[in-house]
């Protein structure tokens, strides 16, 4: 089981590193531009948010956005392509348990999220002096976020029947959720109704606890945020495992 797991993870890492020009380089450039424009140029006019200057305020959110997008993109594209070119059959005929397949793909998503997130962190460090309040909160939030969105990407890939299907969810669901999850602002500045609504968005909890790890301030209790993320991971893991075991859109 360990060898099979390791094989899937290595294969996944080789897959996205082989095409690093598409997978690693662009998010690092795009995110650095976000920081330069929103943080560096406009931030001075916006002033402080949650007690820190705007540039430092948005850095955790922007790093986490790249983690979300890349973890999701890795599993959704890799698993969908495996279905598309039928190479998923290589796994289906082998004695690899469904949990191992799922864990392998999720681990691939986590690694890509980490590599790109770290790339952004390093790129940002050239322009801004970064401080980390608690590295363990940062790492834990990163890990839970990457797991959650790798699982979401996997489920999307199971249902996807065309390339359109793997871009609809990121564009019309993931992107709005990400932007409305307090990535560029503190939810405290929203009217009460929108504050309440934001609390139904899981990305809010991720951004909040990630920001806690960097800046030491948050709008929700860290335990609540972690509990929300862990609960959602468990729910999506059960769904993903069920779909894989049932062979939905994989076996007829």
């Amino acid at each position, binding site marked *: *089981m360990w*060898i*099979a797991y*390791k*094989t*899937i993870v290595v*294969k996944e890492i*080789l*897959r996205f590193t*082989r095409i690093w020009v598409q997978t690693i380089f662009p998010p690092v450039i795009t995110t650095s531009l976000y920081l330069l424009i929103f943080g560096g140029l406009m931030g001075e006019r916006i002033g402080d948010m949650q007690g820190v200057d705007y540039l430092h305020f948005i850095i955790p959110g922007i790093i986490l956005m790249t983690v979300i997008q890349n973890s999701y993109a890795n599993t959704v594209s890799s698993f969908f*392509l*495996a279905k598309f*070119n*039928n*190479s998923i*059959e*290589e*796994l*289906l*005929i*082998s*004695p*690899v*348990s469904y949990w191992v397949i799922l864990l392998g793909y999720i681990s691939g998503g986590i690694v890509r999220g980490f590599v790109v997130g770290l790339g952004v962190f390093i790129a940002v460090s050239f322009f801004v002096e970064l401080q980390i309040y608690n590295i363990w909160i940062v790492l834990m939030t990163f890990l839970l976020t990457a797991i959650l969105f790798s699982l979401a990407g996997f489920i999307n890939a199971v249902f996807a029947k065309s390339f359109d299907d793997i871009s609809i969810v990121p564009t019309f669901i993931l992107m709005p959720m990400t932007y409305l999850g307090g990535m560029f602002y503190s939810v405290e500045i929203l009217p009460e109704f929108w504050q309440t609504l934001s609390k139904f968005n899981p990305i809010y909890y991720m951004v909040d606890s990630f920001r806690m790890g960097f800046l030491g301030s948050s709008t929700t209790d860290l335990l609540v945020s972690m509990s929300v993320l862990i609960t959602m991971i468990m729910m999506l893991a059960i769904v993903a495992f069920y779909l894989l075991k049932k*062979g939905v859109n994989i*076996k*007829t």
Partner: protein
Amino acid sequence: MLQALSISNLTKTYANNMKALSSVNLSVEQGDFFALLGSNGAGKTTMIGIICSLLNKTSGEVLVLGKDQSKHLNEVKRMIGLMPQEFNFNPFEPVEEILVNQAGYYGIDRSSAKAQAEILLKRMELWDKRLDMAKSLSGGMKRRLMLARALIHQPKILILDEPSAGVDVEIRRSMWKFLRELNDQGMTIILTTHYLEEAESLCRNIAILDKGKIVEKTSMKKLLARVSQQVLILESTEQLPDILPTLDFKIERLDAYSIQVSLNDVNISQALIALSENKIEIEHVRSAQNRLETLFLRLTSKAG
């Protein structure tokens, strides 16, 4: 003796109510070289898909070397190697990686997998291509890659779904030689093919599947013995006479130099002597049709 494969009452109905297999019973002995023939849509690939866990069966039982697939799925998977009909590898992966990864899925560590991959790639004449992306291979090379991949975990049963499609004659012959060697070493091989000559040349036993049902299962020898008529094309070096002689067998003129003869109770030597006595000297003899093909068409009701 323990059967390599034993299928009982296997039925598969797809979601659109299309019945691909109806109560199929089939057994294949250990060490056999077995042909599973059938026209397009007969149910061969469905049957293979179920045996290899790529498709869910509707009902029935599949035993592989005595192990029930429903109860010992992973053990059954380890015993089977599959070379499918369609290319099913990631075209953007290097050739060697495809084999090493497949071995990894079977729990074989990377160094052993690389050693085994080297043996197989050299045998398949793909060693020079090991670092190339699979998409850059020719059709025949891709088939050989899939054969190597099917063998990477050293299965006891090898299932080949149309292995020679798109493979040139020379490579096909060398593939046949390799398959015979594997069979001689004790590997059970189950083959589906459209090249009936391939089945006739390689396989000892045969089953014919038609519309999801087994319509014939016997030894190749017995099956071919049932075709009493042999149709041959004979070519002469000299122009044939205007009026052909009347002999104990049917003669038809094809052109000025060749005739077609249908032999029932007469063998080829007797036919050649009879023609020679009538001043028709034959230089070339070739079969007008594959005997297995004749039978296949008869059994699947497609004879013209």
